[in-house]
């Protein structure tokens, strides 16, 4: 395993990641943290605590909804779920993200030096 430097997340990017993660279905905070960690092969080491203010803020904005449910192990956990407004937000933010990352990718792939 090579050494990895955790990448600082751009402001607002965490929201996009959370929205995207929840688009597969309801998840609790811990599950969300693990999912992000595994999916990115530990590149994005989110400080797990910072996930929660992001979740609460999005709940206040009406993008996600919280619900207490029981886990498979029979423990109570708070599950988050996308709302319709959240889905719209996700579409919008991912479009922006694609535009930005596409633009950055083009720059990185440039073969000519700037004139």
């Amino acid at each position: 395993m090579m050494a990895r430097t955790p990448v600082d997340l751009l402001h607002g990017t965490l929201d996009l990641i959370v929205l995207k993660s929840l688009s597969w279905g309801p998840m609790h905070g811990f599950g969300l943290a693990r999912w992000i960690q595994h999916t990115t092969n530990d590149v994005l080491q989110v400080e797990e605590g910072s996930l929660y203010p992001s979740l609460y803020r999005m709940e206040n904005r009406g993008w996600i909804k919280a619900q207490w449910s029981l886990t498979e192990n029979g423990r109570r956990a708070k599950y988050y779920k996308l709302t319709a407004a959240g889905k719209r937000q996700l579409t919008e933010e991912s479009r922006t993200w694609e535009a930005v990352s596409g633009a950055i990718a083009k720059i990185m792939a440039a073969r000519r030096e700037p004139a």
Partner: protein
Amino acid sequence: MIPRDDDRVPAWRRYLRFSRGDAASDVNDELTFHLQSAIEEFVAAGMSPSEARDAARRKFGDVDEISQTLYSLSEQRERQMERSEWLGALKQDFVFGLRQLRKSPAFAIVAIVTLALGIGANSAIFSVVYSVLLQPLPYAHADRIVTVAQVGAKDTLNFVPHGNYLAWRARSQSDFVDMAATWGTRTFTMLGIGDPTPTSVTIATASYFRTMFIPPVLGRYYSDDEDRDGAAPVAVLSEALWRSRFAGDSSIIGQTINLNSKPTRIIGVASQEYVMSPPAERMWMPLAPPQSRFADFGDHELRVYGLLKPGVSAANAAAHLRAIETPIAQENQHHGYDGGIAVEPYVDRLLGPQKQNLYMLLGAVLLVLLIACANIANLLLARAAVRRGEIAIRGALGASRARIVTQLLVESVILAIAGALVGLVVAYVGMRFLVTSPASIPRLQNTTLNVPVLLFTLALAIGCAVIFGLVPALRAARTDLQQTLRDGGRDSRTAARERMRGALVISELCVAQILLVGAGLLIRSSINIQAVPAGFDTDNLLMVSVGLPTTKYATPDDWQRAFDDMERGIRAIPGVKGVAYAQVAPIYGNGWNWTSFREGSDGHDDGSLTTDMRSVSTDYFSTLGMHLLRGRSFTVADGPDASPVAIISRSVAKKLFGEDDPIGKRISNGSVEKPAWKEIVGVVDDIHGNGLAEDPFPALYMPASAHPNPGMTFMIRGGVAPTTLVPAVRQAVAAVDPQLPLSGVSTMREAIGAQLALPRFNTWLLGLLGGAGLLLAIVGVYGVVGYFVTQRFHEIGVRVALGASSGAVQGLVVRQGLMLAGVGIVAGIPLALIATRLLRSFMFGISAHDPITFAAVSVILGAVTVAASYIPARRATRIDPLEALRS
């Protein structure tokens, strides 16, 4: 990790929903779950429990800080939710309320129209109150502007002589930024543009515009240098004059117009806000007092204003001025002032006299609105009776009492807001009407429906909604659910409801009583004033003023000749029965106040008194129809070169000479050192020359020929309607000089009417409000008595079946109305006695507790109550006993 469906919040926690603890424990539970899961994961990966706990915490970050953030975020969410829940409920109530009102359009329309009239009338009067009283004065530092006046023997504030004003101004610079004076408004002739036009000119010092500063609209105000005797004449136009006469042309600045035959340069246009009362079209010209005026301490001519320095109180300024004034007064003792000075905020002096008047009207119109509210409360109570079933069911379905009250109040608010919106139309119409009032109230012309008026209207609407809606809503919400449902929706507490409605109608009658007594007292005062004998014949008397420009008519001889020529020309007009002229016509204006004393008096004892001095032509007394009690009238022989003569009025003769015959005695109106003796040749009766509501003045008449003046007012007695004479009079004056304009053309009746405009306006308005209050109270009585009949349908049917005559049935119903009226009237009398005390200053020749007015109003209220009860009474006699018993 698929969640099982579960309730969102554990049942026990619902009870904590509104406590702060709930959000905190939610956060704690969530974070505990996270850390616990992380620890378990690390333990499963082979760590010891304590290592796992540390690792989990490290990975998580600062637990305390994050939970603090989460607490505040969830509190924010709670608040958000409460707010939207509340708004949602309100919106629901609104929609439901609208639907309810649409279901009973008759009720809604009656209520909205009643409120529109009531609220609209209030807004109209408030718009005037705001414009006249509440709006700050337009000047810079308005709170430091004061009026300065001398206080005379009778504590009256007087106009100030030039000498005193100049001395004050020169020596009070430590207290005042500046002092200013105005010398009334007179009529000048403007030539050059069309016909000679009379134009109002206010004579003011240059400091006037500095003391009361509003930036000029155009150009500038005049300087002290231009306000000097001998300086080239300049004038400042009012904005209205500039727009109407000069078409708002800015090139007028610097141009010269011909004013009283003098070329006068226009140097500026002043803000219209300088004009507090009509005429809106006027100019200002410098006072420019001649040197001879500087030592004049006797002619009370100027109104004096001052701008206090910051931090100087009016009382301190007055004390300092007194120190300046006292030696002047001592040197000029014969003028009757002892150095008293009054310094008063200008705003009080200007608006103080209007306060009582306008607040009286506002109070009256609020009372009318109260009656209107009581009527609507009554309608709502009746509706509540119908809606008991509905409300009971809503209660059964779990609506809290507060929710039901809110719902019913929202309905009231909808009614009130709708009423206020329609009321704004009423307010606009009413305001237009009030502004055209002939009464001269400062700033009345500037009245508009502005933001403060709209806010007042909104506040009034909400206030009304609470007044008429709260009690019915609370009562309705108290409905006993089980009882109502058991009764099948019928009301089993009729008695309480009827008491409530009765009490409302009684208070309406009380308030109507107050309004009607007030109106009655004003009407009787108005009649009393108009019944005052003026002391001269006021019918068919035309008055016309002519001012001679002194550039063209230089000497008193020129004046005399011109006025005599005009008099001759006017006398020759067919239909003219007599003509005379005087410097000031009665009613038209005040004469000069001078201390006069008889021979042998020292000018201070009871041989002296302040007289109203008037110079009049030879036919003055005969033309006016005044009674000559003794001696003779003036003749052409009493010219400037003849030995001086005077005619005194009866009250002067009585004060100075008692029972003695004053003919041949001498009287002086000069100083004690240099008396100007005049021989008394006649005594005439006193007249109410300063207005019918004023006391007759003690008059000292002198022949106009001996006291010439370039301005005179002709009094023309017509054998025909006097206004038909105006064209011929115009011709007669033009025959003498075509450049002379006529000003102040009016009949004596009109002049008296204009003087009584304010009291008449008050009377009229209060009468209207009293009428409105009475009408609303009648509707209230009718409603309650009608409801009584409906409620007793069955009982009356039984009575009729048992043989009650229709008279007995009618009696039963009318007695209900009379009982209400009786209680209302008896309770209203003491209230009216208190309220009319506030009207005392409006009374003329009548006591504010006048028993005849009180009795008459009580009888009227009783009579209309009987009339209003009679209609439902008739309905009661037609009840078919069979039908009543079956129902």
